């Protein structure tokens, strides 16, 4: 069972308290109704599924209930860092070689 640091609670808590909510940094268009079919396809259906670093959304479901973002390595399953919803993608990751 993983330990996940909630950036709002500022505490590492067991995985059981959290729920994954899919890939992060996929913004909903401000002009949703006017999106083209292609853009909507990208927004709704296309996900990256990388081997390695992934940015994803998690919710501290059984804690503060906040959604936040996490950087996780899909190979090692390690959480590299977590940050609050709305914050930009971190440019530097702790402990990850380029």
């Amino acid at each position, binding site marked *: *069972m*993983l*330990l996940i640091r909630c950036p709002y609670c500022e505490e590492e808590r*067991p995985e059981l308290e959290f729920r994954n*909510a899919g890939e992060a940094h996929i913004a*909903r268009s401000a002009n*949703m*109704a006017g*999106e083209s*079919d292609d853009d*909507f396809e990208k927004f*709704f259906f296309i996900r990256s599924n990388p081997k390695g670093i992934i940015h994803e*959304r998690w*919710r501290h*479901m059984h804690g503060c*209930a*906040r*959604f936040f973002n996490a950087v996780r390595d899909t190979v*090692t*399953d390690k959480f590299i860092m977590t940050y609050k*919803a*709305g914050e930009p993608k971190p440019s530097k990751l702790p402990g990850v070689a380029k």
Partner: protein
Amino acid sequence: MSGAFRIPSAGRLSQAKTARFSFDGQSYAGIEGDTLASALLANGVHLVGRSFKYHRPRGILSAGAEEPNALVEIKRDAARKTPNVRATVQELYDGLAAQSQNRWPSLSFDVGAVNDIASPFFSAGFYYKTFMWPKAAWKSLYEPKIRAAAGLGVSPDQPDPDHYSSRYAHCDVLVLGGGAAGVAAALAAAETGVRVILADEQAEFGGSLRFESGARIDGQDGFAWAQGAVAKLAAMDNVRVLSRTTAFGYYAQNFVGLVERVSDHLKAPGHDLPRERLWQVRARRVVLASGAIERHMVFADNDRPGIMLAGAARTYLNHYGVAVGKNVGVYTANDSAYAAAIDLKKAGVNVAAIVDLRDNPTGPVIDEARALGIEVNFGRAVVRAGGKLRVSSMTVQPKNGGGERTIPVDAILMSAGWTPSVHLFSQSRGKVAFNDETKRFVPGTYAQDCVSVGACNGTDGLSASLDEAYAAGAKAARDANARDYGAKAAKGTKPKVDASESWSRGMLGAAPGAGPDTTVKAFVDFQNDVTAKDIRQAVHEGMHSIEHVKRFTTNGMATDQGKTSNMHGLAIAAETLGKPIPEVGLTTFRAPYTPVTFGAIVSHARGPLFDPTRRTAIHPWAEAQGAVFEDVGQWKRAWYFPKTGEDMHAAVDRECVAVRTKAGLFDASTLGKIEVVGPDAAKFMELLYTNPWEKLEPGRCRYGIMLREDGFIYDDGVVGRLAPDRFHVTTTTGGAPRVMNHMEDYLQTEFPHLNVWLTSITEQWAVIAVQGPKSRDIIAPLVEGIDMSDEALPHMSVREGKICGVPTRLFRMSFTGERGFEVNVPADYGQAVWEALWAEGQKHGAAAYGTEAMHVLRAEKGYIIVGQDTDGTVTPNDAGLDWAVGKKKADFVGIRGMARPDLVAKGRKQLVGLKTKDPKVVLEEGAQIVEDPKQAIPMKMIGHVTSSYWSQNCGRSIALALVAGGRDRMGDTLYVPMPNGVVEVEVTGMVFFDETGGRLNG
């Protein structure tokens, strides 16, 4: 006397404490402190089981958890039968009853042993090759027969009456393994004051100090030192000592699963004791001190009872005071077996000969063996064992060929060397490295915050192991952020090793006489009956990866997980492939290290505690009325209220008619309820629902539809606007949690600029639906502060006031098509208000109705149930709900998805009504619909029935269905092919009762 093979001068058990036990019905005497294996051996019993595939007689190989052969059934009573218990682990208690397994009619005469003679037909992969056809015979004939003939013990056939417990624990340093190294590491860590847990699978700590008679630490016998050190640890406040506790799994971030066997060793476990306790430990640092496991020699018929690991024989002698034979032979490729021979000889057992595969080994143990007068042969191999139910001889030959000599023996002690136990290290995702010089895999690259010490790290010698372990324990304590716990430098002193033993290398793979040119049965994996020949054959048949070899031969796949066999199997595969061992690689070690009971994992989460049960405030009333309940998610909902003599049909018909003619009361408390509050509440509702909300007057309600971004219906419910900034939203019963999550998701991440709070109020409000022509007459006398007239409180409105003196949110709304109300009251008052309304209702002939009548009534009106009439691929238009989509809105969740080409295409499945031509026929929900019932199978299916009921109010059956282009088929005849014939149906509108809706308004 506790057995003819007990040597009173040897061992640590007190001869005075006798324990009686039985094996296959025969009664024996043992001593408290024995394992079942040591007690059997003390009585001269070696034959304890039959092998998995060939039903060969098997004896006791080891003295620990690695045992592949000695699996027995322990039976306490009819329900407490545990199969596949390792006799080497099971502690003896007075009255223990054990049975051998996988034999018929008896252990010494087993009909299944014909498999041994027929073994040429049962070679590796034979299951895959032999029973290929006819295909049908596999399920009916081959599989049941094979499963009956092969296999281990029989599963218990009654529910487990024992209870199990489960605990979480946190510590700074978790030490796994309580041999010399583990105890030293725990001492060093504990002395700094940090929280330490020390666990060992055995009843007593000490590990190999149990048999190493030559070990002396701090001036005392090694085993005695371990007992003293552990007693000292157990007395410390910061240390938890767990014996009989196996670390079975090493998971992410130093999360380790341990299972503690609490009462399997007790004669009469009290009911206050769990049978086992699962420990889930999160440790800042883990010290692995799991030791090493001795390997057997791979030679012909090396599985005969009486042939065992040398270290095991030594354990039986030095710890249990049991001689494993009277005239033993020794077959070895390393020094450690000499120590066994020496100990036995000194205890008065005759050692017929030591056969050493090595050419000219030297060392003190060899000198000592010779000095004791033991015959020592170098450069020779045991090429075969004689005997069947018990070994009777060993045949010795120079390893490069030559004359044979057969030596009579009643036991053979063997040692091919020691394999470091890297199981837990490997489970932690650490990478093992092959040491070419010592021919063993040792921990290489670490993946977690752990460290291996002692024999499992490939460290030889007690002194070096203790030094390494003590330093590692101190470092682990320091690294575990020790300052949090007021730690200081270790204040104790490192244990001093005064005398120790050291073992040299050994060999891997098949011994001479079991080489590639032979067809002998030289077992590599005893438990799965895998021989050296099987592994070579697998390679020859094209299995070039060790993972394929493993699966094809099943080597290492039995319950012992290849603890003794993996390295031999790997070496033979590597030799056959002509590759060095590290290139062939090791198979992955998987949890559990030893089998774990389902009971320990499930713990209390079974029966009524498996999943929470949710009951409404009105549940006790419904129960008292004799309601039949159904499960809806975690909720218990009243399904129907049968009166004496009524079946479900009669009850539902009566309830449905009562609602339409008089009134009905319904417990709707399980409806999901969410309060949406804040200055931007209306804006938020506009975005989350298809409907317009800004202009909804406070005090009015609206039926809302929620979509996902893909444009499909996600949930629905009536929403009341209590105030400009306050909405009382209802959701489906099952959908409440996901709707709340969906709303929170958008509020927190996409629309965080909106000033809105969301609160789940499902459990705060009990909801009593009062529906029917008399509903207002029932409610009105109890209500204060609300004008109940149709003008003041029209259909789809909400008021706050009081009922029975308690606050209420009174909705005028209907899921039945009748004049109706939903009375929300604080849950604590739910039952009292229900009872008051019930009393009023009795004056007007009202009935209580359950979920089944509710379903029928809503279907009569064509009201959909999300999740029943929709399935996640239905748009508002498909469901005939276009009217609920705000056409002028610029945005809402699903607005774009709904406009996708496929979702606006012609011919989509649309929700319609169906009337069977024969009104008495009730369709089956889920039944498929076709245009032409005479077409060839497979027919083209154009839709399916989503809801179907008998409607007493309509006097006929009614159904809803999703049908392709359904709204263009009004009046058409379609067909529902069923096993008993085709049902003819007419496509209709969805409303079957009161099509104009006049009854809603009274």
